[in-house]
């Protein structure tokens, strides 16, 4: 009897979690401009796909996400590997701290850093500052995913390799890395998603010509009603959903 009540509650809770997104997606197909249903249409999708601002934002986001994700994955994987061999308390603590630091604080602190450096280097905010920032907060995510995988790896495999003549680098690249590759890929996908979705930090450290997709969406959402945002949102949901499912598959391997 109690189980029934719990089940009903769970169904309601899950509905609460999923319905807002479902509503968004459904209304992205609304041919009307407002929330009154006027029939099915794909006009907002075509509007979104043809919008130059969205296109530029998408391009920037993709470039930033890919570069940042690659860098973060390399650095984070190496860090996870280094920490597997010996504990690095300060680094580990710092990474965990970066995960709980509010985005606004990370954002303004990086902004402060860049502005201070620019006094001497005569540079401006641009895509590269965004990339730097994204790598900074993604490293921790990568480290966690790869560390989790490394915990299940048998150390004696590397020891055997080194016993047979391989040095540390060789042992890593030829013995350990191939084994944890699915987790590394999953971490990369995670870093990709995290970078792609970031608004707060990006908005603070982006230059005038490096608007990302979330920044464009934010501006559109703030300006008022536009089902174009629904369409873009639906597309993003599908994209992220696919990436996350892929990442999960990789992680389970």
């Amino acid at each position: 009897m109690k189980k029934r009540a719990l089940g009903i509650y769970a169904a309601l809770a899950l509905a609460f979690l999923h319905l807002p997104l479902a509503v968004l997606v459904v209304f992205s197909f609304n041919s009307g401009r407002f929330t009154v249903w006027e029939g099915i249409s794909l006009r907002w999708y075509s509007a979104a796909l043809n919008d130059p601002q969205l296109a530029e934002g998408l391009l920037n986001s993709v470039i930033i996400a890919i570069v940042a994700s690659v860098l973060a994955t390399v650095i984070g994987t190496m860090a996870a590997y280094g920490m597997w061999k010996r504990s690095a308390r300060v680094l580990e603590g710092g990474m965990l701290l970066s995960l709980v630091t509010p985005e606004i604080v990370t954002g303004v602190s990086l902004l402060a850093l860049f502005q201070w450096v620019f006094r001497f280097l005569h540079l401006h905010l641009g895509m590269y500052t965004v990339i730097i920032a994204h790598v900074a907060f993604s490293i921790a995510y990568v480290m966690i995913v790869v560390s989790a995988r490394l915990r299940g790896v048998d150390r004696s495999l590397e020891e055997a390799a080194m016993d047979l003549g391989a040095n540390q680098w060789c042992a890593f690249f030829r013995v350990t890395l191939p084994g944890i590759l699915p987790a590394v890929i999953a971490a990369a996908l995670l870093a990709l998603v995290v970078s792609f979705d970031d608004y707060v930090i990006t908005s603070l450290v982006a230059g005038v010509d490096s608007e990302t997709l979330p920044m464009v969406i934010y501006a559109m959402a703030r300006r008022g009603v536009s089902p174009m945002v629904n369409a873009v949102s639906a597309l993003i949901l599908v994209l992220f959903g696919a990436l996350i499912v892929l990442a999960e598959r990789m992680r389970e391997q």
Partner: protein
Amino acid sequence: MNPRSWFLLPARVWMALFFAAPLAIVCAYSFLTRGDYGGVEYPWTFESYTRLADPLYLAILWRSLWIAGLSTAICVALGFPLALFVSRAGKRKNLYLQLVLLPFWTSFLVRTYAWLFILRDTGLINTVLSALHIIHSPLPLLYNDGAVLLGLVYSFLPFFVLPMYATLERLDPALAEAAADLGAPPWRTLWRVVIPVSKPGIIAGAVLVFIPCLGAYLTPDLLGGGKSVMLGNLVQNQFTTARDWPFGAAASLVLMLAGAILLVLLTTRRETKRLL
């Protein structure tokens, strides 16, 4: 140098340059004076911190604390039964867990926007209600503390369910059976055994929700408008429009301090350490 240290080097450099140094700079800025055209200049002063004690800003701090606190409490109240359900789902445990987490993994911006779409004057709720002639003018559902609360709970509920589920899943089923055997009906078992034993998980989950809620920016920004200003909005404002960096830096530090204190408390308690 030890080859293993080489592996740690890139991360150490990056974190030092782009995480630690920036925070140090912010710390320093909080003790400096505001520059005429933005930025900072000498002299060193405590002025920014004393300004924070102004009732206006204390109100913002207070609002941030109670919104974050209430959001956390609601997440715990709503999330615990959900986590309980998933942990008892037998073979379908994983499926339900994925269902709970799936919205969480999609875009944060999109999820916040969804409530904007539903709650605003021309949004779904108002449109439906007026179409049914229940109301004649739109309800102001948006741009208040309640909307922010709703947005935060919606965004962070899965954040609580995950560690709570992990704790409940590890609970020895024999404990519940023993309680029943000794005469406790299910809700008494829950109250006297399950909840106390899973307390570390509850606390860990709560802290994991409280900290981001306290430093929330996007949710109060989109859903609260200018009416529900939290610390995160204050910080952003000072670093952009208001151009009062020292003040913004001081507010940032207060934010960080609150989070750091909680985190230290969390990681030093023996039971919760095991969870992490």
